């Protein structure tokens, strides 16, 4: 899977055959895949239009179209001369010095905001950063601060090295998101910082050590238009780990939890989306945050959002948050999602809605959430078993793309075994197993055994073991045969993964081994 960046539990079904589905799974904390490609351009954002009307931008209109059409080389030449101009303006001490600086900044900012490929590299080579840092110095006019932060924002939205170039500017950017700054300045600085945080773990750690978390968190508290949204987005970048410390610190900050709840309740889809991403990382990384969110009824709010919205951008983080809450803390499944309670039914209902969705990310995440609920008590398993989700799951197992099938298989596998305490071997829920097998799910699992993916193969083998062991009247081996399961297992005869090889060979030996036949036939 390529789109998780949060550490959902993915340590399912124990490694040895016989210990089948029973544990909740978070997803891997490390990801090599493209980050959240379902939400375009999340990590870094380019700023085209200013954060406030404080900037008098009337004179922009004439060159608006022109810049876009311009040749790259011309743009580069302009950028380098703009930086030169700024250098001169910064050095100039005479009358009208401030205005000179502002207009030089504006020129540079326009160049950096308009084109699809802004001339960041040239600007950096020409020495823009130290000049911009100087323009951020304390006591400068808001307009100047704003222009400088805007330039930095767009530089940071560039390639990794370009983002890193902001390092010298970070202390001042952080200083300007404090409470003494005007809102537009704070927001523009937060934007730049968000881009930096989006770049990577090392930069996040630098920002955190320089104290960016607290002022950013405070920006989320009051309801002041786009400030909150930008701050929430920047925060979601800042806390995304993989270290969990920032997430735990954030939830401990006074008022943050309340603000999250309030936004989740009242905000429009756009803001709710950003807030939901904050919840995604809080719940993925911090146990403490998970517990607090659950205690404060966030599950209910997430469910309401899922039920009422059709915005994919919003649904994805909301569903992911819900999944994390369910995966993260066993109390959630046991205490909150009590079968029979209204909230539990609502959760199942919204998950069914997502399973039915056209969008594969929603389907997959919904199946994942269900797999974690299915890892709960026997009652939870019964609930899913008798819900509308079951036929959908069965259908997806045979028809969906690979990654969805795998999630669905975890759910179906979990439905068939009782929860285990300690390291014991889980008992089967024979009724569920028989019904699922009768609905033809065995072939889906055997398909997984044939896949090249090691985890999927393990899951398939584990389910096959359940069938072999658990189907009444010793019917298991016959069913496995009919689905050509022996052939599927024989592929592992010489597999490089020891676990899979032993599992498959063990099953073949135990249930299909060619006995010596000497004892019986000698009589």
């Amino acid at each position, binding site marked *: 899977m390529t789109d998780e960046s949060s550490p959902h539990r993915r340590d399912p079904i124990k490694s040895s055959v016989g210990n089948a589905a029973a544990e909740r799974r978070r997803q*891997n904390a490390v990801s*090599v895949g493209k980050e959240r*490609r379902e939400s375009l351009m999340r990590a870094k954002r380019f700023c085209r239009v200013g954060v406030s009307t404080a900037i008098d931008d009337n004179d922009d209109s004439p060159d608006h179209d022109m810049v876009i059409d311009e040749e790259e080389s011309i743009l580069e030449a302009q950028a380098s001369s703009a930086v030169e101009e700024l250098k001169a303006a910064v050095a100039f001490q005479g009358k009208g010095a401030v205005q000179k600086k502002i207009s030089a900044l504006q020129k540079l900012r326009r160049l950096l905001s308009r084109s699809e490929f802004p001339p960041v590299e040239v600007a950096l080579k020409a020495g823009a950063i130290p000049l911009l840092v100087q323009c951020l110095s304390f006591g400068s006019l808001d307009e100047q601060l704003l222009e400088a932060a805007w330039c930095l924002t767009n530089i940071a939205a560039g390639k990794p090295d370009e983002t890193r170039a902001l390092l010298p500017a970070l202390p001042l950017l952080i200083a300007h998101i404090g409470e003494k700054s005007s809102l537009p300045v704070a927001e523009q600085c937060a934007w730049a910082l968000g881009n930096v945080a989006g770049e990577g773990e090392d930069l996040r750690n630098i920002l955190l050590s320089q104290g960016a978390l607290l002022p950013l968190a405070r920006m989320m508290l009051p309801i002041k238009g786009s400030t909150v949204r930008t701050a929430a987005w920047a925060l979601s970048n800042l806390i995304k780990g993989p270290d969990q410390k920032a997430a735990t610190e954030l939830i401990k900050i006074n008022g943050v939890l309340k603000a999250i709840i309030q936004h989740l309740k009242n905000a429009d889809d756009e803001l709710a989306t950003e807030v939901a991403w904050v919840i995604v990382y809080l719940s993925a990384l911090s146990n403490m945050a998970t517990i607090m969110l659950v205690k404060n009824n966030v599950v209910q709010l997430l469910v309401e959002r899922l039920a009422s919205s059709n915005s994919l951008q919003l649904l994805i983080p909301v569903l992911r948050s819900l999944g994390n809450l369910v995966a993260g803390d066993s109390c959630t499944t046991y205490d909150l999602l009590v079968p029979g309670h209204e909230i539990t039914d609502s959760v199942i209902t919204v998950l069914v809605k997502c399973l039915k969705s056209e969008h594969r990310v929603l389907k997959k995440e919904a199946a994942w959430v269900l797999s974690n609920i299915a890892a709960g008590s026997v009652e939870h398993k019964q609930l899913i078993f008798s819900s509308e989700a079951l036929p959908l799951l069965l259908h997806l197992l045979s028809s969906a793309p690979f990654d969805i099938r795998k999630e669905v298989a975890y759910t179906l596998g979990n439905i068939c075994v009782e929860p285990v305490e300690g390291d014991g*071997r889980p008992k089967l829920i024979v009724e569920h197993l028989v019904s699922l097998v009768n609905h033809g799910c065995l072939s889906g699992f055997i398909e997984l055994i044939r896949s090249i993916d090691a985890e999927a193969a393990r899951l398939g083998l584990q389910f096959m073991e359940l069938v072999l062991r658990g189907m009444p009247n010793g019917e298991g081996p016959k069913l496995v045969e009919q689905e050509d399961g022996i052939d599927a297992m024989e592929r592992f005869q010489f*597999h490089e993964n020891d676990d899979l090889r032993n599992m498959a060979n063990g099953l073949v030996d135990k249930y299909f081994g060619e006995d010596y036949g000497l004892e019986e036939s000698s009589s």
Partner: protein
Amino acid sequence: MEWNQETVQFLSHCFLNTLSPSPAPRRQAESSLASASEQPNYALVVLRLVAEPSVDEQIRMAAALNFKNHLRLWWTRSSTDPSVPTDSRIQGPEKEQIKSLIVPLMLSSATRIQNQLSEALAVISKHDFPKSWPQLLPDLVSSLQKASAASDYVSVIGILSTANSIFKKFRYQYKTNDLLLDLKYCLDNFASPLLEIFLKTAQLIDYTSGPVGTAETLRPLFESQRLCCRIFYSLNFIDLPEFFEDHMREWMTEFQKYLTTCYPSLEKSGTNGLIIVDELRAAVCENINLYVEKNEEEFQGYLHTFATAVWSLLGDVSQSSSRDRLAITAIKFLTTVSTSVHHTLFAGDGVILQICQSIVIPNVRLREEDEELFEMNYVEFIRRDMEGSDLDTRRRIACELFKGIATNYKAHVTAILSVQIQNLLSSFTANPAANWKDKDCAIYLVVSLATKRTAGGSVSASTDLIDVNSFFATVIVSELQNQNVSEFPMLKAGALKFFTMFRSHIPKDVALGLVPDVVRLLTSESNVVHSYAASCIEKLFLVKDEGGKARYTSKDIDPVLLMLMNNLFTALRYSESEENQYVMKCIMRVLAVADLSQGVVAPSIAGLTSVLNEVCKNPKNPVFNHYLFESISVLVRRACERDASLISTFEATLFPTLQTILSNDVTEFFPYAFQLLAQLVDLNRSPIPASYMPIFEILLSADLWNRSSNVPALVRLLQAFLQKAPHELNREGRLSLVLGIFNRLIASPSTEEQGFYVLNTVIENLEYSVIANYMSHIWHALFTRLHKKQTVKFVKSLLIFMSLFLVKHGSENLVISMNAVQTGIFVMILEQIWIPNLKLITGTIEVKLTAVASTRLLCECPDILDVAAARHWGKMLDSLVTLLSQPEEDRVEGEPEVPDIAENVAYTAAFVSLQNAGKKEEDPLKDVRDAKEFLVASLTRISALYPGRFPQIISEALDAANQSALFQFCNTYKCVLV
């Protein structure tokens, strides 16, 4: 070891001699090197020798090989065998130096040495990369960039093969955060340089492949591209990395080019040229196969183009008789597509028919290579054709494609195939001599597309393509009945395979009617045909009817038995079939089933003995040898069951051979020989004949016991002797020899279990008066070992031994003999070993034995019954109730045990147990039926003697669960504790 002229000379001399054709100097050199390798810095010095240009190349090559093997053995020593020291011979600083030297050295070496060093590097990286070798990847990348800039493709290929081998782990390990971190690190450093070199090479190929290019310039370029593709495969295996998603178009464009473009200047330059291009194409197919399976959403834009490309490529490839690898990977890709969400690509009108005609059937059809294999290497042919090792053959993979398509279009596939099969059969009928391959193709399709299933414990098949019985009657029977056993051998083999696979479907009378034909086919000179005939008969005996009863019995083969045995031994005389395991397995099976009249026994034992005499000269095929010994032992067992007097005939026939095995040091056969001897001893009545006595002497020679693979069989033989001839042991100091063996075995954790077998056998079979004098010595040895290394396994064995001692010779002897070693040691052992470990005992007989012994201690041993020892009494009972009331899996936690002997003897012949020479484990306590009952009855008796005393101890010392369990025992057996 230091690098100086002397060392260089010494090592060069040794390495040169390791290449010597005469064994003496070679062995001498090998042993000098082995002892030199114990010195620190040995590996480093050898590596410098490899790098020394003044040294002769073949010496450097030998040194490189030795370096690699040394690293493999010693780089990290995480041995599970405790007898091997765990410290590595290669220390930290030496490792660092090796790591800093090896990359540049590998790159500057000639190809053969480069290969060795590249493998050595892979060994190191397996343990050290990336965390303990942060410099490796940056070094490789900068070398790659340098080599690429210089267009030095020898180095480029060296670097890429190294990268390829260190990235392979991403292909099969489970996804964990650690693995993902490693992968991320590799991607961050290598993804972009990989794309760079790939695109650069692609450009060079585009430029060079025109009329100006020569095969020699193209060759390394294609090899480099192939390696890039393999690395692509490893790096993309777990997840689709962001970088690769962003650059998918660049990769796919080149991939597509290689599938659709022809490179005549290389492809036409001899067969080798085509192979090189095909290898790249096959690597491309693996990559797109991976994408379509796991990343079909991102890949779907390319899917159609690739499917078309692969399809038309297969059109060419299927017609050509080499190009297997490419055909297989290309068909695999189509198979994956057929089972994916994009299977509708196959839904079009006539697509499936076209696939059947242009891909499946041409690939299933026999080609020259198959015929050659059939004639020249029957073992390999059978392995692929019959035993499922054909996963990577074109024939099998073509059938897989059909199975894949059938998952969504079953009816359609079945209909088309049925027609195709009929067409193939009619073509055969029209002109059998010319079109016999059509019939083979039809049979192969039916058998391969059948579903494997088990019937009566062995794999067979079922199909809905055809009606099995009518196909059998019309297509198969005629081949089996063909009187000319040498005509169309491949069709006969196919027919026999069909019979074997569908044996449970064929009615008994039909099958029996054909048995004489199959027996006749044993005389076919074709190795495959007589192997299949033997296998067919062997498998028939495994067919079971409903209820598990064997369908074919001795009566069914009686009429052909003599002919059958005769033909089986005849088959063993054909060239290449002297050690035919299928034939020998059939002999074993027949001897296990048939009615063994004298007329069969005599030629059989003569035949088997002569075969054994032959293989003793040079044992080659362990499977054949195993079945041979099984055959002999089943013959001995069953014939003697019928007529006990035959034992002397067997002794007379077998002794000379067994003696040859022992005196000629045919070590591979020692375990078998000892087991056979043990079986013969068992079958004798006491006193055993004097002819066995020399063997008894051999048994007591310490040398044999040194080889761990011998030990289980020796123990088995010793047990047999002790049981049949206990008094022999008491003579000429033999007992102390035996105890010496025990002492030796007990000292090492890998043989301690065998040591206890010896000891238990002695204790069980000899009177106490005989062993009393030795008891101090025995206890001393056991306690010393316990003191030195206390493993769970040892403690359990000790507990079992003490229990056995107690039930055989009484608790008083136990306590007295133990305390004679050291005063009070009995109570100490009881407290520290017996009580806490009792609950770890597993196995029905063992649990019963230790439970009964514990019960007797509780109820008859004064040391414990003493009021002052009430605490021990209570704890002992608590443990005992745990042992008896809880199921094994709850009592025993998975413990890290020393692997048993069979697992850790990788270098010598492993012990293989003979089923037929085996012996049922005997219960030393036949008179006690139920240990729980024994416990409560004994407790009742003793509590009646001391009323009121035990209920109080019980309520204080037993935990609640055990109290209620004990109470339940009492209820069950209607006993009351007062």
